[in-house]
């Protein structure tokens, strides 16, 4: 590369060249004079023979230049000089583009980080979630993620597989830590051997949990998450080997996992071994999530076949008890493997929402581009004369088009650069807000791919909005004639802007319809009875009494009863209850087969969700009692075999709620039957958009409930308080005192109002709604500005014509109507196109809708009315101006 010294040498080269050419002409002239010409004639003849010296000098110089780069530099200088002369225009366009590109880049970065980037584990393509489906298991339809694995399945799969490098099962949970300052609750990940091997992320400090840690009778080990280690231990490296009490059981800290490590989609504070006791396992107990690392090159289909091969081995190796046919899992439940790439498991169903948001933001960008195109058209129109003169002087069509396009490209690139800044800020904001249901949040960043996207988007959009004026005005030679006067707008010129407005209206309609559908969905969700009332007046709080702290279940119940009494005594609290979990709380549900007396016992009982409740829980939560009564403390302390079921379960089994009273049910063949003493309203346990599952409520302390001959109480429970003071600082401290007055080593966790839990369950819908709402609002404002702009431009262009019309006696009303009508024609065309597009596109968002059809007539009609009214308004304002034109002044202005 020798272009750099060239630049410095050039001045001399150009000087030499010019001198040489001058001397050439001189020599030729003198030659001609000596042949007898006059000096004047000779000079002319010499110049003729030489050719166009300026052009030739230019050509000669170009030999030493990189012509593209240099002429680009000159052109750019011109572009920026011209933009600087109309700062209002430049600022509007650049700001519009920066916001549009910034929003698109931000959303793309989220999409890229969540959906496209590989998981942060080595060789992530080998990782799978070991999922099973069981289409024949009644009640399973309520499961969102198929059938999980049982411990016996884990043992079978881990020992007999041929396609996995490693596999294991895990479950997320909650535990109490005592002995470190205040007692507190931690998020746990309980894992078997094989889980850490599968994820293959080495520990930050110390070591992994080893197979020896999985011995149910051996020493107890635990690993810490990086965040918890930093928070609770200040990042002290000497924690390895220290002991901490988890659920009152001393455990030795053996390692710390590195920063950013997540177990599939779970953030955890501690990882502890599951330590299954192999001798106590039965077939059932499908509560665990399985993950595995496939051998290199093994496809998922092959792994599915491998798991299918192992299922019979599993059914033959284990049993649910004597006399029970193990193979009903095959015959009735029809368990089939359905392994998923682990990434799909992590991402979940957020993909839909993200694509929708991306699409929406993309459409807004398109609308912004059409607006910019419109501005550029007006600007190019104003330069028509200038361009026409240049064309007449011999500027090539391509040359003028290139100049117009270069202006657009410069605007696009400047907008893009600012857009990256905006995107960066938005992502920072997003991380700060931290929407709980957005997976892989910590991985979201602006990477090279996002930057490339921004760049491509800037160029593409500038080409899009720049091409229109460039194509239109590149060849304007004819415009020279009447361009100087305010003649009526030519049809052709107006048509370009009309098209843009039609496109804007169509796109705005699609976005408005989508936004309106989300509003309708939100309304429908709000109208669903969730199974509790006045969520803003419900305060919840979790606490847990581990067996190692208080062994006797009666004492546990007594403590819980005392806490409830103390809480109820707080001023302003009207009632208190507790249960194993509040609805929508996101606590792992318990499921098992529930047998009803008198129903067939040979079949496997359908799976039902079950919870444990204490007296007063339903009254406090506002869950209506349909028939019978709530539980009483006498039921609980007396270990009476009673229970409550949900209305849908009662109807399904016995037809009416009252018919269910007195019927009996049980979980295990050798536990006593429990009598239905109450039927309560259905509760939307998994969020309002999910069907209310059939639920069985056991008393919080029961015999035989945790397996045959066991006797225990629900040890981790959520208390719920009905009070106007819910969510206040004062209530919180009084609650803390109340709990600690009973037992000072109990932690308070998840202190939230029911309203927060409820909103959280609506988070996906409200997030989508807000995004679509913003996009729809932006789109319709841009669209309406578009209509207004086009009509008022038409008015200003036609002032002379209006003047003549008025002078000839045209009525003002008719004149106004003429302009309003052209606005309405544009809107109507846009609406027609938009309706067709919306009816197709909204089908794509079906999975996000609830209780409303994608073709909901109310939505379409209301959007139509809104658009029509705004269009009339947008065209009325300029039309009124047209009617106010003074004919004398309009004509004199020429």
């Amino acid at each position, binding site marked *: 590369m020798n272009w750099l010294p060239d630049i410095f040498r050039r001045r001399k080269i150009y000087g030499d060249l010019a001198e*040489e050419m001058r001397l050439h002409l001189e020599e030729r002239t003198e030659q001609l004079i000596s042949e007898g010409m006059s000096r004047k004639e000779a000079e002319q003849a010499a110049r003729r*023979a*030489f*050719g166009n010296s300026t052009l*030739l000098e230019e050509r000669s*110089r*170009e*030999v*030493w230049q990189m012509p593209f780069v240099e002429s680009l530099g000159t052109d750019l200088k011109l572009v920026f000089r011209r933009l600087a002369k109309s700062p209002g225009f430049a600022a509007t366009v650049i700001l519009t583009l920066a916001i549009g590109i910034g929003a698109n880049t931000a959303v793309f970065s989220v999409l890229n980080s969540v959906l496209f980037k590989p998981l942060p584990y080595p060789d992530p393509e080998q990782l799978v979630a070991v999922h099973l489906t069981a289409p024949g298991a009644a009640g399973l339809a309520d499961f969102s993620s198929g059938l999980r694995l049982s411990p016996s399945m884990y043992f079978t799969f881990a020992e007999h597989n041929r396609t996995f490098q490693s596999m294991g099962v895990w479950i997320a949970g909650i535990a109490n830590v005592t002995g470190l300052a205040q007692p507190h609750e931690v998020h746990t990940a309980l894992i078997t051997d094989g889980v850490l091997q599968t994820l293959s992320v080495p520990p930050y400090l110390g070591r992994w949990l080893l197979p020896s840690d999985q011995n149910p009778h051996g020493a107890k080990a635990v690993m810490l998450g990086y965040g918890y280690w930093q928070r609770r231990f200040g990042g002290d490296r000497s924690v390895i080997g220290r002991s901490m009490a988890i659920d009152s059981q001393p455990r030795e800290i053996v390692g710390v996992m590195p920063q950013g490590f997540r177990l599939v989609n779970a953030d955890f504070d501690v990882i502890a071994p599951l330590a299954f006791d192999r001798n106590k396992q039965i077939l059932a107990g499908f509560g665990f999530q399985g993950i595995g690392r496939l051998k290199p090159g093994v496809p998922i289909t092959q792994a599915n076949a491998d798991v299918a091969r192992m299922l019979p081995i599993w059914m033959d190796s284990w049993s649910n008890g004597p006399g029970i046919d193990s193979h009903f899992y095959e015959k009735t439940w029809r368990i089939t493997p359905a392994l998923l790439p682990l990434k799909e498991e992590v991402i979940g169903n957020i993909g839909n929402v993200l694509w929708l948001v991306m699409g929406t933001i993309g459409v807004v960008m398109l609308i912004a581009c059409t607006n910019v195109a419109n501005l550029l058209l007006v600007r190019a129109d104003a330069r028509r004369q200038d361009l026409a003169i240049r064309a007449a002087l011999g500027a090539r069509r391509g040359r003028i088009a290139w100049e117009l396009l270069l202006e657009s490209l410069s605007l696009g690139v400047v907008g893009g650069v600012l857009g990256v800044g905006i995107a960066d800020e938005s992502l920072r904001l997003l991380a700060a807000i931290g929407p709980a249901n957005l997976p892989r949040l910590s991985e979201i960043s602006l990477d090279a791919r996002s930057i490339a996207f921004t760049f491509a988007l800037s160029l593409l959009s500038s080409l899009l909005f720049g091409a229109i004026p460039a194509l239109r005005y590149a060849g304007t030679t004819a415009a020279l004639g009447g361009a100087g006067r305010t003649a009526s707008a030519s049809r052709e010129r107006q048509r370009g802007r009309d098209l843009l407005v039609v496109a804007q209206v169509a796109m705005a309609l699609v976005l408005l319809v989508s936004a309106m559908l989300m509003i309708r969905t939100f309304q429908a969700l709000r109208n669903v009875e969730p199974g509790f009332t006045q969520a803003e007046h419900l305060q919840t709080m979790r606490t847990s009494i581990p067996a190692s702290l208080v062994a006797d279940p009666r004492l546990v119940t007594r403590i819980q009863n005392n806490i409830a009494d103390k809480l109820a005594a707080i001023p302003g609290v009207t009632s208190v209850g507790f249960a194993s979990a509040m609805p929508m709380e996101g606590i792992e549900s318990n499921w098992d087969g529930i047998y009803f007396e008198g129903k067939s016992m040979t079949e496997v009982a359908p799976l039902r969700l079950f919870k444990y409740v204490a007296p007063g829980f339903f009254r406090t939560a506002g869950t209506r009692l349909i028939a019978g009564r709530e539980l009483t403390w006498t039921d609980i302390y007396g270990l009476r075999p009673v229970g409550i079921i949900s209305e849908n379960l009662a109807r399904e089994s016995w037809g009416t709620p009252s018919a269910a009273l007195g019927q009996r049910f049980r979980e295990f063949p050798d536990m006593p039957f429990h009598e239905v003493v109450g039927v309560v309203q259905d509760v939307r346990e998994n969020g309002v958009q999910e069907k209310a599952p059939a639920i069985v409520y056991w008393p919080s302390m029961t015999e035989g409930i945790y397996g045959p001959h066991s006797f225990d109480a629900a040890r981790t429970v959520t208390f719920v308080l009905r009070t106007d003071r819910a969510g206040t600082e004062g209530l919180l401290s009084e609650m803390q005192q109340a709990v600690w007055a009973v037992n000072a080593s109990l932690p308070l966790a998840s202190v939230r109002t029911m309203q927060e839990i409820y909103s959280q369950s609506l988070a996906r819908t409200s997030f989508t709604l807000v995004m679509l709402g913003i996009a729809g609002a932006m789109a319709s404002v841009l669209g309406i500005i578009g209509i207004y702009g086009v009509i008022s431009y038409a008015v200003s262009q036609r002032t002379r014509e209006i003047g003549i019309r008025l002078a000839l006696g045209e009525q003002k009303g008719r004149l106004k109507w003429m302009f309003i009508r052209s606005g309405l024609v544009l809107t109507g065309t846009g609406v027609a196109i938009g309706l067709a597009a919306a009816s197709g596109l909204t089908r794509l968002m079906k999975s996000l809708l609830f209780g409303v059809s994608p073709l909901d007539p109310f939505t379409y009609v209301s959007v139509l009315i809104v658009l029509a009214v705004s269009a009339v308004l947008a065209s009325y304002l300029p039309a009124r101006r047209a009617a106010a034109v003074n004919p004398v002044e309009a004509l004199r202005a020429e």
Partner: protein
Amino acid sequence: MTKPTARDLFPGALEMMILESLRRQPAHGYALVQHIQQRSNNLLQVEEGSLYPALQRLLKASLVKARWGVSSTNRRVRTYQITAFGLRHLEQEISSFERMFEGIALVLKPGESTAT
């Protein structure tokens, strides 16, 4: 107006003729034009100025070098001289040009080519 005999030179032709002229003796721009016009019996109507872009290309490619000096008629002139590299380049160009010319000539005389 274009004269019926006037024909654009093919790219590189002017450069080749300049190099050939300079191979005989170093010359300045004006002398080169004179030389080419005389040698071609004025058949080639070359704009005199078009020599200069061609000379700049040759300079850039180091096929010629230039030096300011004074001519025999006592004029200040910039004299061009072919370089060793330019000589080699010229030989290659001429042989490839001759092959091309031969080919064109064969095609333009169809009768003879079928007779042989």
